[in-house]
């Protein structure tokens, strides 16, 4: 018997179709027979034209990720199951405190090479999605083996003392700093990812995973230590010889797994760089190392995503593919050739390491962002020009040079905000989008063109050695231009 179940909220409708198990129904005439075999699941979100459609694997991923994300929404503590980028078909990323991006990698989109479906939800829409899922969980006549199983996120080693302030102040990582997070020219702000410790624990300790789910997803990439081993691996452990020599590029594919262990082992023995300002500066260094070396940008069958470990001097000390596709295609990236050479630089021993998420998109765009986002607003590093007279003069110069290069009618409807730095001579040394529209429409501003003219590349490294004056530059949809002194990230 064909059965439909519908969980309907103002902004979200979850529609399940399936069959009842004939052997179990025959006992008596049930008013509401059990839907025990799922044939099709559809999720409609208001404002989005295309429904999210899939089978059981999709539904299980959806309810697992939505449930974990909802818990994270309450506590602001990263939930391991909300960010399992390696295995989940459905992903939810926090774009800013009131915007959540639902990404679905359908089987269909994988096979014919289309990009995943993305829907941005505001908090009320997110709640409706959570509620539809919870009503499904609570419905004992629909796939009764899938029900709500909540568990608090286990303690992460270290930094729990900071939890309070982070709780009281909802993370101020808004659109602004997200834009700052992804270096200038990516198109998608890259989501925050959980710590590796939490990630691996999820495989072991989570209750929401039921066995059928585990069987459908591949968990091969990450080695799964037992919880006890993890707790034992405190950052205080002295560094040992766990770091194996860096593989060379000829055996790139095989060596990835070595690098994988390296970065995880390294992180269990050395401290991690988390200072936002330092991360931001390193972020650029990483970008500027990889971008020029990535020559052949065609022929990627998927976005390639890596976790990359970077020492304080910007040296790439290890990387790890987040999924098997990225692992197989590592040869198409310059990562292996960019790994630091211990002969030239000396071995990594007890240095702190920063982690970045590096994405080589199918469209040929490189994206680099801190693996866990920024814990607070970063500051601009480097010496600054502060003399008010000079700053005023430079401000006028900057205004003129941008204004002269403006042409065309803007297609954007919201202000584009940038940080622009100039040197003593008024030459633009650096610029950075500060809000989402600035990120999306940077090509409509003269900034990349000016940059290109000066440096021959629109992504050249800022020279932080010389003192710079920083300004906030706003392009308004009506064509107006505003240049004001920089007052820091907000």
């Amino acid at each position: 018997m064909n059965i439909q179940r519908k969980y309907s909220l103002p902004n979200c409708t979850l529609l399940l179709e399936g069959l009842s198990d004939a052997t179990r129904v025959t006992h008596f005439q049930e008013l509401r027979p059990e839907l025990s075999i799922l044939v099709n699941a559809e999720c409609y979100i208001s404002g989005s034209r295309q429904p999210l459609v899939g089978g059981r694997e999709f539904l299980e991923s959806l309810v697992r990720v939505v449930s974990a994300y909802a818990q994270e929404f309450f506590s602001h503590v990263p939930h391991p199951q909300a960010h399992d980028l390696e295995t989940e078909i459905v992903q939810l990323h926090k774009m800013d405190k009131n915007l959540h991006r639902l990404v679905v990698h359908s089987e269909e989109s994988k096979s014919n090479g289309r990009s995943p479906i993305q829907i941005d939800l505001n908090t009320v829409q997110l709640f409706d999605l959570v509620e539809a899922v919870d009503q499904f969980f609570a419905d004992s006549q629909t796939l009764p083996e899938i029900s709500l199983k909540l568990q608090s996120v286990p303690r992460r080693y270290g930094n729990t003392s900071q939890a309070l302030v982070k709780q009281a102040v909802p993370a101020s990582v808004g659109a602004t700093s997200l834009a700052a997070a992804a270096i200038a020219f990516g198109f998608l702000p890259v989501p925050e990812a959980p710590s590796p410790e939490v990630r691996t624990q999820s495989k072991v300790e989570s209750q929401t995973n039921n066995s059928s789910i585990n069987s459908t997803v591949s968990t091969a990439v990450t080695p799964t230590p037992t919880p006890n081993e993890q707790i034992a691996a405190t950052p205080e452990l002295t560094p040992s010889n766990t770091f194996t020599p860096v593989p060379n590029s000829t055996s790139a594919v095989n060596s990835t797994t070595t690098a994988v262990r390296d970065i995880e082992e390294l992180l269990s023995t050395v401290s991690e760089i988390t200072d936002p300002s330092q991360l931001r500066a390193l972020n650029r260094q990483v970008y500027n190392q990889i971008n020029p070396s990535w020559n052949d940008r065609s022929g990627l069958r998927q976005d390639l995503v890596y976790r990359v470990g970077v020492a304080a001097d910007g040296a790439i000390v290890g990387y790890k593919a987040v999924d098997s596709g990225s692992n197989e295609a590592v040869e198409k990236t310059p990562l292996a050739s960019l790994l630091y050479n211990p002969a030239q630089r000396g071995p990594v021993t007890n240095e702190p390491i920063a982690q970045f998420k590096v994405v080589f998109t199918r469209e040929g765009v490189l994206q680099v962002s801190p693996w866990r986002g920024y814990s607070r607003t970063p500051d601009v590093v480097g010496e600054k020009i502060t003399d008010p007279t000079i700053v005023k003069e430079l401000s006028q110069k900057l205004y003129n040079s941008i204004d002269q290069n403006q042409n065309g009618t803007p297609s954007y409807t919201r202000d584009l905000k940038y940080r622009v730095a100039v040197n003593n001579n008024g030459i633009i040394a650096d610029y950075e989008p500060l809000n989402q529209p600035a990120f999306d429409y940077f090509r409509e501003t003269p900034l990349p063109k000016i940059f290109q003219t000066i440096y021959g590349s629109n992504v050249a490294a800022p020279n932080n050695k010389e003192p710079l004056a920083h300004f906030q530059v706003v392009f308004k949809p009506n064509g107006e231009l505003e240049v004001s002194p920089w007052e820091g990230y907000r």
Partner: protein
Amino acid sequence: MTESIAAVKGIYIMNVSATVSSFNSPTSQSTPMILDTLPAPAIEGQSCPRKARLQIDLILLAIEALELGSSEAILAFAEELDLKGIIKDRVNLWRMRSTNPLRRAHIRRPLSITEAKALVVIACSISRRLTVVIRQLLMIYHQMSDKQIPLEQNLRLSNYLERFRAHFRSRMNSRRSGVLALDSDEKLNELAIDLLSKLLFCTGTSGTQRFWMSLFDGEVE
């Protein structure tokens, strides 16, 4: 065969409780049934961690900013939900809330798991009654921030924000680092909206359980 499940909150509460109540310990006979829907967290001892004490008090503060006379409502719900044995009177309630470390009148007394459960159940019950208001305010907030209109321009929203800021400032100790960080109207508004969003999630079918379990995120072994 099509069935539609109404979006009325609370229908499935009993259903959920049924699945969770197997956590009952034999000693829980004296505690009210409704609290058994919330499993005991895997933490040491019988008292709440700092973060949980803070969050519970703040969510109640948001409710108070949302609706005048909510402190009476808290006591009324305690009566209604048969939690009078735990939350006996106004003074008793005040002492529990003063376990929030940010309070001016912070009391160094533990908040027991049972007391915390009672406060969470009450907060979520009140939030369910306020579902419509909470949703509307959040919709207004989304619309206004999409259009970059200052929040003060909406009377209802600014009433809530203003009351929240006033409550927060009059009751929290401004010398505490957690409070120090919230030194501007803007930051307090952000906190108020964050709490309002959490209240929305509290109204859901499993909102109480979700809120409860999240209080111990990062605290359990």
